[in-house]
């Protein structure tokens, strides 16, 4: 089963105003892997995701989804394999009701009308949102929107799930539920996020992007244990790995620094 593979080679992209966004990114993600893509703001995470979904095309280098390089010509097939979950669910849920939204993708794929209902209900059931079927998306809460957004993608039965900041705007409980839900999926998962704890929960592998380049690529636990590496890339250890002792010290030193600067003034 080679069609779950995502391979990016020497990807270079500059925005029209010549701002470099990606500068020779290379990695290969195989079937069933869950990979976290982390990096400071402006590191190129979103731009990279846009390339994986064919919303942008590289200046040089290539993106391969499965056996084929992603080009404008085979975009339609490639997009059937990739499910992209956008950062803002309001961008993703554009239809008048939840049902219509989940049905949108399969209908475009040419699924016959009589099978649609079963597909939509299965997708909504998977994310625990079947009861929201008839509701308009703008009336949903943040967590509900996120669930429905995931259902819209699942309904297209993709091999690869790509997520941009899936935990933003969620309260702790909704975030926890999302993580539990994502854990049950067997798809290849690519998650771009600032939420390192989420990466720790979901991804065995992590890629750090820094100024458009791959700064590190390896086991999540090893990367997050390397404080120097994280610091160089403007990242911080996931809260859970910082430990109580460490945390208390940090708070203390921050406090004394604050009072010191006050006294200085």
């Amino acid at each position: 089963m080679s069609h779950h593979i995502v391979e990016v080679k020497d990807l270079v992209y500059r925005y029209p105003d010549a701002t470099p966004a990606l500068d020779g990114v290379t990695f290969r993600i195989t079937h069933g892997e869950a990979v976290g893509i982390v990096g400071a703001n402006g590191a190129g995470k979103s731009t990279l995701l846009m390339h994986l979904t064919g919303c942008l095309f590289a200046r040089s280098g290539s993106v391969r989804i499965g056996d084929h390089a992603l080009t404008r010509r085979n975009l339609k097939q490639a997009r059937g394999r990739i499910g992209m979950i956008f950062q803002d669910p309001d961008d993703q849920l554009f239809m008048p009701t939840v049902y219509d939204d989940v049905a949108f993708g399969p209908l475009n794929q040419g699924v016959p009308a009589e099978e649609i209902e079963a597909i939509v209900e299965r997708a909504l059931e998977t994310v625990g949102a079947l009861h929201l079927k008839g509701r308009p998306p703008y009336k949903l809460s943040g967590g509900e929107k996120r669930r429905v957004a995931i259902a819209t993608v699942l309904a297209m039965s993709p091999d690869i799930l790509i997520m941009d900041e899936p935990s933003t705007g969620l309260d702790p409980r909704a975030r926890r539920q999302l993580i539990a839900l994502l854990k049950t999926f067997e798809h290849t998962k690519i998650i771009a996020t600032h939420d390192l704890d989420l990466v720790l929960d979901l991804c065995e592998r992590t890629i750090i992007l820094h100024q458009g380049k791959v700064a590190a690529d390896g086991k999540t636990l090893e990367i997050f244990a390397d404080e120097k590496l994280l610091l160089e890339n403007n990242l911080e250890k996931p809260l859970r790995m910082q430990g109580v002792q460490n945390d208390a010290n940090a708070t203390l030193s921050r406090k004394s620094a604050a009072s010191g600067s006050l006294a200085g003034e």
Partner: protein
Amino acid sequence: MPGIDTALYSIGGLGELASLDTSIHRLDARAKLITTVLFIVTVVSFDKYAVSALLPLILFPVATTALGNIPVGAIIRKVLIVSPFAVMIGIFNPFFDRQILMHIVGLPVSGGVVSLTSILLRFALTVSAALILIAVTGFEAVCLALERLKVPRAFVVQLLLLYRYLFVLLEEGLSIRRAYALRSGHARGVDMRVYGSLLGQLLLRTLSRAQRIHQAMLCRGFDGRIRLARSFSFAAKDAVFVLAWGLFFLLVRLYNLPVFMGAMVEGLL
């Protein structure tokens, strides 16, 4: 400001009434759409002094509201929100058209007053009919009915997206407005000089959102056509609904029913 907020959000409330289940709600969306269009055409086709001839037409909104279990207050409040437009159109008629047309309990009534009344009556009838249509059908079902009736697809897609993003746009507009209010001290309203950049900001946000939505649509196989999984069935009762009301509208249009009935009663006496 809360006034604006709630007024705008209540637009959405109308669509929610569409999930009720009454005899009117169960009718085919096309039947209701066609009937409403017939109604509006009938109302606007009367001449400018028509008042009494219009009165029987009130039956249509009243009947659909009652059968559809729609709260009358909700409709009236929304009609009032847009009423300034209608008032502006007719407000000067009484000054320009001073010809005395009739006397009511001894008081002379000029043509201007009559035509202003006619404008307001027509406005109330047409706008409430359109609002009731949304309340008993739902906006998206109306759009679908339009598509089935061969209205160009691009237009229908525009309407659907407009309705979906109206609230998102309002929210962005309101948050810009709030951010301005919080930092503008006690200034009342928005300074003209800042207005331009506020609107520009809103436009830019709208454009980038539109771009993201388009990408999201492309990622799910959008090819210029929105497909909706809904089945429509135009049954006998739908045909009866359209025909019966159509006939009634025609009757009202051809005969001034109140006058006609008055004459009949007098004839009998």
